[in-house]
């Protein structure tokens, strides 16, 4: 297990280096740049823009910029945002809470609800409930989140006036209740699609388990339906879900761009889009590296988790 872990870590580091190189090359070699936003400002001249580029070190060869950036990255200095002059780690950190709150709530909702629906559907296979859940899941997966968000705002904010139309909290209030009121709509909209995904996976996984011999044996031993379900079915159905959860980890950093935009939620998705729009290379690279790390960590945790549970994986 130790060698397996070490080898996976080594592969991850090489992958990170490749991602950083490709990301940096694509960003800096693409036409345009962080200073073009100033071009239409009154009094701005090409001479002025060249001077600013030189002061920011943007006139150096790309490979010099890359190795300089990499050198700093290794010692924990992720650079400074071109947009607001703050450290990249601070910029990412200042958006992280918002995303964790939204994604965390949505994930808890979707996993709990999705898994329950999936298990119920599998146990009542072919029933009216199973069919309706299948149809609903297809609808949720097919309709854009943006549309869902707008409908939710129209109904619950504009018409009924029950919940705020957006933002994370009311400035000047910021109580737990206020946060919760602001969280309900975006988290529900975001969870909706994930509920559909989790329910479908969970249904399939549960069906696989209920048809296994050990479940039949448990039933034959006279165990109650409830005991069979909780002790033998649910636990085993959740094993393949570990991989799904691991793959979802990077989503925490990527955030939910569409939902964040509709509900003006100050999370990582919007930060990424804004930073791309301004060609804020240090922040984009910071987000790229953080995402890549999460993908690798997510995969690693999933693989190790499955390997821990299923020794056959380790032996391979």
């Amino acid at each position, binding site marked *: 297990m130790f060698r397996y872990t070490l080898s996976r870590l080594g592969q991850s580091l090489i992958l990170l280096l490749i991602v950083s190189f490709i990301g940096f090359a694509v960003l800096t070699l693409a036409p345009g740049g962080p200073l073009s936003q100033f*071009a239409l400002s009154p009094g*701005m001249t090409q001479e*002025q823009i060249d001077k600013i580029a030189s002061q920011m070190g943007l006139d150096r060869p790309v490979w010099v910029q890359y190795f300089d950036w990499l050198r700093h990255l290794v010692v924990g200095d992720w650079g400074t945002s071109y947009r607001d002059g703050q450290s990249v780690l601070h910029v990412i950190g200042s958006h992280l809470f918002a995303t964790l709150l939204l994604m965390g709530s949505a994930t808890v909702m979707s996993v709990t609800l999705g898994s329950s629906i999936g298990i119920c559907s599998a146990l009542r296979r072919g029933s009216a409930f199973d069919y309706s859940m299948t149809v609903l899941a297809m609808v949720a997966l097919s309709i854009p989140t943006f549309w869902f968000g707008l409908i939710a705002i129209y109904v619950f904010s504009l018409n009924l006036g029950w919940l705020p139309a957006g933002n994370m909290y009311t400035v000047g209030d910021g109580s737990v209740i206020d946060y919760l009121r602001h969280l309900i709509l975006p988290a529900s909209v975001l969870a909706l699609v994930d509920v559909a995904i989790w329910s479908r996976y969970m249904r399939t996984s549960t069906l696989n388990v209920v048809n296994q011999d050990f479940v039949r044996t448990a039933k034959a031993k006279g165990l109650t339906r409830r005991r069979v379900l909780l002790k033998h079915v649910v636990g085993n159905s959740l094993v393949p879900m570990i991989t799904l959860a691991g793959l979802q980890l990077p989503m925490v950093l990527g955030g939910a761009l569409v939902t964040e935009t509709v509900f003006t939620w100050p999370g990582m998705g919007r930060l990424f889009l804004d930073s791309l729009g301004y060609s804020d290379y240090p922040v984009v690279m910071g987000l790229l590296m953080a995402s890549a790390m999460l993908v690798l960590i997510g995969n690693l945790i999933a693989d190790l988790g499955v390997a821990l549970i299923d020794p056959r994986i380790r032996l391979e």
Partner: protein
Amino acid sequence: MTDRNKKSAHLDRRQALMMMGAAGAGLMTPMMIGRDRAFAANADASGQLVLAFSQEPTVFNPLMPHIEVDEGVYYAVYDPLFDFDPDGEFFPVLAAEVPSVANGGISEDGLSWRLKLKEGVTWHDGTPFTAEDVKFSLELTMDPDFRSFRSTGYRFIKDITVVSDTELTWTMSESFAPMTAILASTYMVPKHAFDGVEDKNATILNTAPIGTGPFRFKNRMAGDHIELEANPDYHMDGPFLKTLIIKYVPDLNVMYTQFKSGDIDVIGLQYISPDHLGEAEKLPGKVVEVVGAATFESIGLNMTRPQFQDKAVRQALYMAIDKGSIIDALYYGVPTPTETYMPRQSYYYNETLPRHEFSIEKANALLDEAGWAKGSDGIREKDGVRLSFSNSTTAGNHLREQAQQFIQQTFALIGVEMTIKNLPPAVMWGDYWMNSEFDSVVVGLNVLAGADPDASDYFLSSMSPALGGSGQNTFAYQNPKVDELLVTGARNFVPEERKAIYEEMQAVIREDLPFLPMFQYALIKGWKDDVTGPVPNINNRIDTWNVRDWARS
């Protein structure tokens, strides 16, 4: 705060006069409503107001390169020496009076300047504001190690001398009338914030700005909002709000929805989109106004391209644009057609320019007469030059893209091939724009310095980067008459004389058509009806120019 409460209870002479003045309120212009607020009895700051922008303000040092939206914060936190009112007249802010030839602040030859400052002004951290701060701010813009927001005008400033805490002088190496307007868009920064700082580009101002303005910076939630609180020691009347929230809402539809739901009190940059105007005007509890902006939309031509060197071609292209349909059908009739770069609200606007006429027949006849014959593919050509070119703008601006497609169709009717090549903003406004790599563009430009009519950066021959200059003349336009008028106008300090100069220049440019003017921008502004103070000002780039006067009733 306590003093203000006292004032509200006992009318002083000024307030009594204002009350008398209120009797003649019917004579007041809408502009005066905002001013009136500053003198009103509601002298204690109270309430909170949420102002929304579609871009996030990020650069807090106002002397560093910044964009329009950043000035929304600057007006609240910092102060300029003086500013423009909606009529284009200067009024003093940190200065005791606006320097002019008439008051002796500027010498007859425009070379010697003397500036007097208000007494008793303090920075938000309590440090007194003095002439040393002004000298430092002006010199900082010229510091080669500092990323300065502009150099135009400042490079003429020499020998800044502090006479006293409230007075300073300097000389200009060249007489330059737009300098007053340039100073009006320069916010003063505290010298002491730079004490002992190695890199002037990385001071505390970048994260926690310190100004003399009506509001103090409280905190910023990145990607969401900036919270400002009333400055109780403000040196002018106001502020009348306890808290000002500048909110960032990137999507225009979402911004409008939040305005509609009441989450936003004042909808700022980029305002209500034209497709929502009809509904917005009917919203209960909201004030919605369509106001002019100094930006004009045009098809800019790259004059180095052989197709555009024949004036007949430029005139025929202009005639082949169905401006009326574009404005009415695509822009919901919101903007105003124009023949010039000068906003019609300006004192320098030339009303006598020839009116645009959409006529495919006349455009065809003009090109026939000029010898541009149609080839086998229906595209005109002359001396081996085909009347074919690309047109670019920022990708994703759907109204502009529809206008482009419409223009493409009407150009085809006169044997002109226009291909569309749109680019992301970061590419469009980079070298492609600055180095005149385009054939033609659809662009919205404000070429003026506030209310000053000088447009040298955009139309002076020597300001074209493509022709070896350094400026914004990306059209690569060259006309000796325009050069002469721009130089004469920039040296002249008398508005009445300058008016004739700039009117003539507009006539020359209208005849030459280095760009095909389409319309002057109109912005659909909105605020809750319990908000007083927002007053449109075409001479400023952003709404908050008078945020000191804003209040909730």
